[in-house]
């Protein structure tokens, strides 16, 4: 257990050292947040509620998006695939203890750093200036925190599954480049999923993309415990998928010699 905590700490430390990237990221977040806020203010000038969301919900969505952006669409996206391709990953499999947990621990350390240094400050400043709908109680905030960490875990699991495609195809980059823009949209990073037309929304609500952004937003705006439950369920499902992939890939490596 201590080994995993050590990895967590290592990941946290590594990510915290990227100070320049942090400043850059915060600036980008702030700018896009401001523009999107202006857009929503303009949109809600004539209407009070659309698709069940009012302006406070929309603004909360915007700033949670900006806060979680670097957590979910982690800048170190391609790392796993590249490590597999370069053969470095074989080393990981040879190390003691569970490779999946090890990778998760390190990744979580990094995302915790991003949460602490980017997400929380972004939301804190935004809520001071704008009418966001964030939980007012300690319990509510704690639930939101849990939801965001779960979003980070699901993000890792999805990245792991995608990254493992590198075991089977050398051309993973082309695949990613074509698939990710669609996932980007479907996760609600362009517009809230609530604005999707009915059938599409129903489809997305049942996908592992909801835990990434919309779940924390719903926890914030509506205190939705259901959203957290969905996240937990997906963590479990993706866990199983991850273990399956790892087992298959390890066998393949052993047989083919990397």
């Amino acid at each position: 257990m201590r080994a995993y905590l050590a990895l967590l700490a290592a990941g946290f430390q590594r990510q915290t050292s990227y100070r320049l990237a942090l400043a850059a990221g915060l600036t980008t977040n702030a700018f896009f947040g401001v523009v999107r806020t202006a857009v929503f203010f303009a949109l809600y000038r004539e209407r009070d509620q659309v698709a069940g969301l009012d302006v406070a919900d929309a603004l909360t969505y915007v700033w949670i998006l900006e806060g979680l952006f670097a957590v979910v669409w982690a800048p170190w996206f391609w790392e796993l695939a590249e490590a597999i391709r370069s053969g470095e990953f074989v080393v990981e499999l040879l190390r003691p203890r569970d490779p999946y947990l090890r990778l998760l621990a390190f990744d979580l350390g990094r995302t915790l750093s991003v949460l602490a240094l980017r997400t929380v400050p972004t939301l804190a400043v935004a809520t001071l200036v704008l009418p966001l709908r964030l939980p007012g109680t300690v319990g509510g905030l704690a639930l939101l925190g849990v939801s965001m960490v779960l979003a980070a875990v699901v993000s890792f699991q999805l990245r792991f599954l995608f990254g493992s495609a590198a075991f089977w195809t050398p051309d993973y980059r082309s695949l990613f480049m074509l698939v990710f823009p669609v996932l980007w949209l479907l996760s609600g990073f362009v517009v809230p999923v609530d604005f999707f037309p009915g059938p599409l929304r129903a489809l997305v609500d049942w996908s592992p993309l909801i835990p990434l952004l919309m779940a924390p937003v719903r926890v914030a705006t509506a205190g939705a415990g259901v959203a957290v439950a969905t996240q937990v369920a997906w963590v479990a499902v993706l866990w199983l998928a991850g273990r399956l992939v790892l087992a298959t890939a390890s066998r393949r490596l052993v047989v083919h010699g990397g």
Partner: protein
Amino acid sequence: MAEHLGVYLRLAAASVRATARRPAYLAARTVSAGLIVAIEVAGVLLMLDRFGSIGGWRPAEVVLLFGLAFTAQGLALVFGDTLEADKVSQLVRRGTFDQVLTRPTSPLGWVVASYVDTRFVGRMLAGAATVVWATDRAGVAWTPGRALLAALAVACAAAIIFGVLLVAAGFTFVTVQASEAANVLLYGGQYLASYPMQIYGSALRFVFVWVVPLGLAIYVPALGVLGRQGPPGLPGWLAWLSAPVAAAFLALGGLAWRAGIRHYVGTGS
């Protein structure tokens, strides 16, 4: 001068040939770039269809702005991608820029022509397709005047984006810190200019009409294309100013670049 241009075109062609050696990857990148544009536009439409309008502008009209902005950005980045502050700082750090200076060409010409990113051609084409679709949906009847305005919007915005890249690159020779500001202006600026300017507060509007005039370059000519009147403070005739303003901005970029080179040669990194 014409013969110089020929050299740069050959360099650019060589770069394209090099990337074309992996055609599948090239195709994927280009399609991906177009896909990203499509996704953004789809998102805007999903949103605006729910709300009906923004700032009095119908969805198709907003999409026109998106299309113009993407086309301009694609055009600027096809050549200007190599000027991105991260890449320039890499050139400096690895000492590769010294080699650039030993060539019998202008360093800017060499850097720009040495790598042409066809990914942005995808963005351009998708942007242009968006413009066509949007004007069709908005019921715009194309006249030579309107076509000129659309072309003006794209050209001026592209020039401004290129100017931003030049300024950032110039700063990169002196300090490494320019990349964030530049990226925010490039990508954030394009996003901002894709919505009608009247929705923004006066501070944002001022910055993006008069300081980094992307708003001026895209919004005002779009007014002409759509046959709309601008809000007070942004009348339609400002479209005639967008060319000189963009040119001035580009010239500023050139000065920043030259100053950066002078600094590099003086201090030898």
